[in-house]
């Protein structure tokens, strides 16, 4: 699977997956740190069950990997494939945002 298409197969997990990848782009984090970081930059609290479903799927696709740790809270980090997939996903979201903002400005006069 190409990195550009990696998030397509995640279906309804694409949302949490993008948030997790965006959080891990800033460095390795364990589950609770991920939850708090995502809450701080996205205003969304990813529930534990959903978080680990997405983590397991991202790991199975090679987009993230666990970091060796003596701590019971195992951290995860972004892989190179994951970084490329996140870039592709965010580029796509930016295109949508750009179009939406431009049309809003043209049709509704919003800034």
């Amino acid at each position, binding site marked *: 699977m190409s990195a550009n298409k990696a998030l397509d197969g995640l279906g309804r997990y694409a949302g949490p997956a993008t948030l997790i990848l965006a959080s891990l782009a800033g460095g390795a984090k*364990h589950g609770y740190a991920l939850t708090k970081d995502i809450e701080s930059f996205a205003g969304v609290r990813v529930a*534990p069950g959903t978080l680990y479903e997405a983590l397991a799927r991202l*790991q199975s696709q090679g987009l993230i990997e666990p970091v060796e740790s003596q701590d019971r*809270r195992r951290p995860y980090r972004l892989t190179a494939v994951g970084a490329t997939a996140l870039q592709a996903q965010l580029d796509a979201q930016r295109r949508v945002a750009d179009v939406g903002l431009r049309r809003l400005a043209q049709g509704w006069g919003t800034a």
Partner: protein
Amino acid sequence: MSGPRQRAARLLRWYPRAWRARYDEEFTELLIADLTERPRSPARAADVIRGGLVARLTDAGLCGFAPDGAERAGPGARASLASLACCAAVFLGFGGSEWSQLAIGWQWSAPDTAAAVATVVMSGAMLVLAGLALLAGLPVARAVAARIARGRARGLIVPSALFLGGLVVMVVGGRHFGNGWPGTGGHPWTHPGPVPGGVAAFAWASTLSVSSFWAHPAALAAFPAAELTWMALSPLALACLVTGAAAALRRTELSPAVLRFETRLARAACLTMAVFLGAGWAWIADRAPRAGSLFHPGVIDVAGLAVMALALATGWQAARQAAR
């Protein structure tokens, strides 16, 4: 009130063993932190329960992915095939009951057109399913035997014993109670049907537990004790047989070629079950007047059809997962 660790441990029980083995400590730590921060959250409990059920479905090879990705492709496919085997057993338990009812009915009187067509189609489907089961079972039995012969029997003894024990009980019990029933077996006053009397009687006896008599305790109390015992025992024996086969399949490594072969058989089995189900539905949906007839479908047949449809849908999903 119990502490966060105890509550986390309780929530973790929703997840399957394999998942817990992989994520136990880190997930527990996350739950403890979350429980400490937000002691009461029904939404969190619901999310964890849903996640656990999804993980269980994944572990059974019915959806999603395997926890460790590509390295788990073989076990994942075997889990899917094992789930399909369980679904097929449920399907055949109820389907065999309806089919034997029609086949035995034909021994006593000529059926109407819908019942005759259904019996013939279901008989053909049964024959195909038996052949597919044999073809699917042989490579697995060979792999299990080879592993035991190499002295690597660990993890296979109990499933093999369950399978063989269940098989012996089903065959001996089915033969015993089938032979004891006078409606089949080539009695001179019976009609020749498309299904040999002995086969129909065996299927009838093996599926005796699928009965509406469970809803009528007074009528059930009039049954001979041995027959009642068999009605209670045979589902357990069938469960042992299928559980043993499924566990052995999950624990036995199969080559990619054998897995591909098994997956093709799985699809063929699903299609055959769909044909069987269609014939059963056509028989039940036909409005020919049959009150008092041996071919009159009852509530148990309608319920059985619903269970078979559910088993087929689940089995089809398992076959799709096995092919991924």
